[in-house]
């Protein structure tokens, strides 16, 4: 592994996005708009909105980074650029971490913007402060990227990559505790949700919302998310084969 190659890959991925204004707009503006709509949806129940908004900040980056990473890496596989790279002197880890860093940085920008809108403009208050909110959102972005890298191996077209959102992310969104608190679910569903990474992203956001100090649960949540992300990255690097 080489830092210069990893960062060159990060730079290249960010450059590609820089040229693609529409995608950038979708990634940075749309979450802000959505969270604003949510605010007015709960116009009569601002307390509920105050509880939900931070959770959304854990879900957006995961969803978006998952989609965008799975499609961009799939494109590398299908256009032959990955063939070229794998025949050349780049390690798989340079490639994977190059991507992971690029999209985590993008996650940082996204999280800063959305938290700015949520806390500044929409008046949501979180006990733990904006910084922790952003930390939790960036780990979610990192997780989304890693899952996207891994999953792109199972899709043969961009069409399929989008479809994989349904079986892989939707169950996580349903079970993460956003719609129904996890202890109100059927036992077996709650057990399943223990194994889904988004559960911990949403819980991390709850910790930040409700606690003024850095709780041990928050540390625990973040470590679990990072663990999931790293496992996905390692599995992903197994699916990128030098020899096919």
């Amino acid at each position: 592994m080489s830092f210069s190659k990893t960062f060159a890959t990060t730079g290249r991925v960010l450059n590609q996005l820089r040229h693609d204004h529409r995608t950038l707009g979708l990634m940075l503006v749309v979450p802000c708009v959505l969270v604003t709509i949510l605010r007015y949806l709960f116009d009569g129940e601002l307390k509920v909105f105050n509880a939900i908004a931070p959770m959304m900040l854990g879900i957006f980056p995961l969803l978006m980074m998952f989609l965008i990473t799975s499609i961009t890496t799939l494109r590398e596989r299908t256009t032959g650029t990955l063939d070229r790279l794998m025949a050349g002197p780049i390690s798989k880890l340079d490639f994977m971490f190059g991507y992971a860093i690029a999209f985590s940085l993008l996650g940082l920008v996204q999280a800063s913007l959305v938290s700015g809108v949520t806390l500044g403009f929409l008046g949501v208050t979180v006990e733990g402060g904006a910084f922790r909110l952003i930390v939790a959102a960036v780990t979610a972005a990192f997780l989304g990227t890693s899952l996207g890298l891994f999953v792109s191996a199972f899709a043969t077209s961009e069409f399929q990559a989008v479809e994989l959102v349904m079986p892989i992310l939707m169950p996580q969104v349903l079970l993460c505790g956003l719609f129904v608190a996890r202890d109100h679910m059927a036992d077996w569903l709650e057990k399943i949700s223990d194994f889904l990474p988004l559960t911990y992203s949403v819980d991390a956001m709850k910790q930040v919302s409700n606690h003024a100090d850095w709780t041990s649960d928050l540390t625990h949540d973040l470590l679990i998310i990072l663990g999931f992300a790293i496992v996905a990255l390692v599995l992903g690097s197994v699916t990128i084969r030098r020899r096919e």
Partner: protein
Amino acid sequence: MPHTAIQINDLSVVLPDGFHALDGISVDLEQGKIIGFIGPSGAGKTTLMRCLVGRQRITSGSLSIFGMPAGAPALRKMLSYMTQQTSVYTDLTVQENLRYFAAMFGIPRRDNAAAVAKILEAVDLQDKADLMVERLSGGQKQRVSLAIALVGSPKLMVLDEPTVGLDPVLREQLWTLFRHLAAAGTTLIVSSHVMEEAERCDDLLLVRDGKLLAHGEPAELRARTHTKSVEECFLKLVGAHA
């Protein structure tokens, strides 16, 4: 005494679906030559190229390049691979594409710009350096793809149909470039299903159904089969094997 660049010994590749992509190929190839892989599409040319660059798992036999087994990590810096599709980042500029691959070959930042400028000149794309690849024509994209294969001055270039779809003037230019590279000691593997291209190679491998039909210089192959062109030679050999 010519140096052997590539030694292929009884190489076979069976794909996961049971298809015999390559079937017992044995041949030695010399350094500093332009070697043509000629044959109809589906003959196994691409599979053989993928074996050379270490992307294809070999079922049996052996393949060594510069004395190392194909796929050896030390070889990755010494070879380049241009795939059949234009494998370039279309959402980057020409220059950004080249700079990225230059970084992958470990070319230091300060030498990067000079190396890229030199390559752009070789493929005649200087004035397109700052254009997005997606805005270029098919032939220009193809040249960007070839330009990337020149990054890092590889000792072995594996080029899958590098001149397909190019106009005659451009094709002539690229062949001149290939000649220069070969004269400087680069070994070039060029695949084509266009027989007229075959005449320009130093050495030919005629491939069909994963088997090596014939190997030799174009003139030698023509003489051996008493034919006037490589195309006739190929047809005659196919006839003999059918």
